[in-house]
């Protein structure tokens, strides 16, 4: 994309000058124009305005044109979907008359244009629970969320269920924390519910999505913030909390804006605030904005940051469930975990646990990126294989290159080789393979990527993001990075390799929090599956992928 547009789409969107086109009664067809950050950066707001004008000019009185959240196939944006006719239009630009003509014809009931979504492998493997309404509702209109059954679960919970019943349902679903660690959600809720505090409890939504390569939480917040708020309110009811915070990273201004607007609208509808859904249950949500510190994704650091302090972790126990914000019992879950809750309450835990694999229930949202054709946002049942994700949904490698690895779990995850492509994706398999689920970033790498360089990239990241509180992480990341730098320059030796493994093991066992404990994972997993590449750098002073500039050795 080569826009030289001087105006800024986010500020245009902020003004929301043009209302969506909504016919009275049910629309015969609707054009859903993606306004998530990806498409918006390609001026999809102008696409919305242009299409709206065309539909008005064509006199299509029973057609809706609305702004929606992420349609998934970010690689092909700006996207417009006509769900009634099962069509998706890609690369739509406001001044592209042919595309506009095809869209108007499709909406008017003529020859349908665009791609047939049911025939696209990108969509066919997906099961949507978290993303059920992404791309279907206007993220800034609570009316849209309500029209698709939104807040029914909360109303049902507060009016007809006891807090214990809600927790039982969530426990029965088998839902595990989607932030990466996979702790059983029902168990966490039960712990916070049991904790007693005269001064109240808190619910905190962790939206500090810091893993490079991950954009699931951003997309969910930009596409359907109400679903996250509903999940939080249900959690508040279940554990007995009346105040909540959403901690969002500063890099996501659009998500912050839509979240704030969603809170105001839900309060206006009486679905948040002092009398939730007309009952005595009180639930207030505030947004706290991060300030660019990766370590704040760690729960104790995040709590410190909400309290206005430096985001440094502290040893656990005590866990936040017993001593969290201002020393009070606090439930912390990730965005995606909360977004699963309304459907679980409404359709039952048994329904949810019927999706997925034996120990990992339900679905997982992944951000598919890197050297793959169909980059974008996907939601699949647990247990799908990596091959299905990369080659069926992802459409294989871009530019006809060969697959080398897929990186999951961010800076504390690992790189998985071709031999593991048929491995099912769930918490256990990934951990066994030396990676982990992480929050859901999945980066595909081709033959031109050097795995030693990737390990160095992640170590550099952890080195800069280490909070400096504990020595194994603060000094370990620096030393390990230095060794990797030496190796990628062709100056490393076999002794350096041994030292590398030694130091990485020390960091894993001695660091205070997940950042330092997980930082060596990319090193371990690349050493495990791509040792040849390390040896080529050390013994032959050659980078097999041709990515490293070698200035050492005898070449």
């Amino acid at each position, binding site marked *: *994309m*080569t826009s030289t547009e001087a105006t800024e789409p986010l500020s245009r969107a902020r003004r929301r000058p043009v209302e969506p086109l909504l016919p009275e009664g049910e629309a015969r067809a609707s054009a859903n124009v993606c306004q998530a950050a990806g498409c918006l950066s390609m001026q999809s707001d102008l696409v919305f305005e242009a299409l709206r004008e065309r539909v008005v000019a064509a006199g299509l009185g029973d057609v809706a044109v609305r702004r929606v959240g992420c349609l998934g196939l970010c690689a092909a944006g700006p996207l417009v979907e006509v769900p009634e006719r099962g069509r998706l239009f890609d690369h739509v630009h406001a001044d592209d008359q042919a595309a506009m003509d095809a869209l108007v014809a499709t909406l008017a009931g003529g020859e349908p244009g665009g791609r047939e979504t049911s025939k696209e492998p990108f969509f066919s493997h997906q099961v949507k629970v978290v993303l059920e309404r992404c791309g279907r509702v206007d993220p800034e209109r609570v009316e849209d969320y309500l029209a698709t059954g939104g807040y029914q679960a909360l109303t049902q919970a507060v009016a007809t269920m006891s807090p214990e019943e809600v927790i039982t349902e969530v426990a029965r679903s088998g839902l595990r924390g989607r932030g990466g660690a996979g702790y059983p959600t029902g168990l966490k809720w039960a712990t916070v519910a049991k904790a007693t505090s005269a001064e109240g409890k808190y619910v905190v939504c962790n939206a500090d999505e810091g893993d490079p390569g991950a954009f699931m939480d951003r997309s969910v917040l930009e596409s359907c913030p109400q679903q996250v708020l509903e999940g939080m309110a249900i959690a508040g009811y279940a554990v007995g909390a009346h105040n909540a915070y959403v901690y969002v990273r500063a890099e996501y201004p659009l998500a912050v804006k839509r979240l704030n607007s969603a809170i105001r609208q839900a309060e206006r509808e009486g679905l948040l605030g002092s009398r939730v859904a007309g009952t005595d249950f009180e639930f207030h949500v505030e947004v706290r904005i991060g300030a660019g510190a990766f370590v704040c994704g760690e729960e104790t650091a995040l709590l410190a940051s*909400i*309290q206005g302090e430096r985001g440094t972790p502290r040893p656990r126990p005590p866990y936040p469930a017993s001593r969290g914000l201002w020393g009070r019992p606090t439930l912390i879950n990730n965005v995606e975990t909360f977004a699963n809750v309304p459907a679980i309450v409404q359709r039952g835990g048994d329904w949810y646990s019927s999706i997925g694999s034996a120990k990992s229930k339900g679905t997982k949202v992944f951000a598919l*990126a890197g050297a793959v054709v169909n980059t*974008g946002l996907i939601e699949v049942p647990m247990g799908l294989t990596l091959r299905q994700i990369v080659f069926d949904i992802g459409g294989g490698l871009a530019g006809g290159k060969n697959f080398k690895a897929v990186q999951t779990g961010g800076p504390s995850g690992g790189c998985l080789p071709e031999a593991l492509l048929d491995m099912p994706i769930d918490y256990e398999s990934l951990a066994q393979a030396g990676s982990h689920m992480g929050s859901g970033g999945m980066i595909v790498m081709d033959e031109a990527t050097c795995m030693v360089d990737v390990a160095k990239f992640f170590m550099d990241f952890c080195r800069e993001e280490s909070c400096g509180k504990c020595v194994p992480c603060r000094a370990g990341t620096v030393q390990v990075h230095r060794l990797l730098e030496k190796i990628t320059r062709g100056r490393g030796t076999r002794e350096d390799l041994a030292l590398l493994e030694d130091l990485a093991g020390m960091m894993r066992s001695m660091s205070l929090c997940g950042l330092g404990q997980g930082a060596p994972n990319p090193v371990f997993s690349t050493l495990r599956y791509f040792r040849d590449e390390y040896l080529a750098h050390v013994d032959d002073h050659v980078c097999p992928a041709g990515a490293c500039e070698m200035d050492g050795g005898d070449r």
Partner: protein
Amino acid sequence: MPTATARSLAPPSDDKRWRQVEVRMRRLGHRPDGLIEVLHTVQELFGYLDEDALGYVSRSLGVPPSKVFGVATFYSHFMLKPQGLHTCVVCTGTACYINGARSLLAKLDEELGLKAGGTTPDGQLSLLQARCLGACSMAPAIVVDGQVHGRVTPGTVLALLEHL
């Protein structure tokens, strides 16, 4: 929640923007835990945090200066020096890294003599690095004055900065 220990004080200057800072602090009840929120507001209005601003926030919220400086320097989002008129952020997240973010930084260094964290001598442009903007599907991505540009190459990066 801790209660307020401080109250409204006279701002460092008669700049009208301080009134907005004061409004923000009042909304947060002048509570010490509002520190990061208030620093965000000051930086949004003034572009960076100078010593006067940090001292004023410290006194207003009843937070010791050492802690205010500690927080301001801990978080990479906070700037203690004035920035250029325009900013260009190059994302160096994983997807952008493997898709060529390094070559963009090299190009900017070569053509403009600009390194990450630096500002051109005329104060026109600051170059920053981000640890993933979540725009991975369009990698490599850069943000010029708030607008995200995807699939940028060393050949197109200068054109994106030309109109500034």
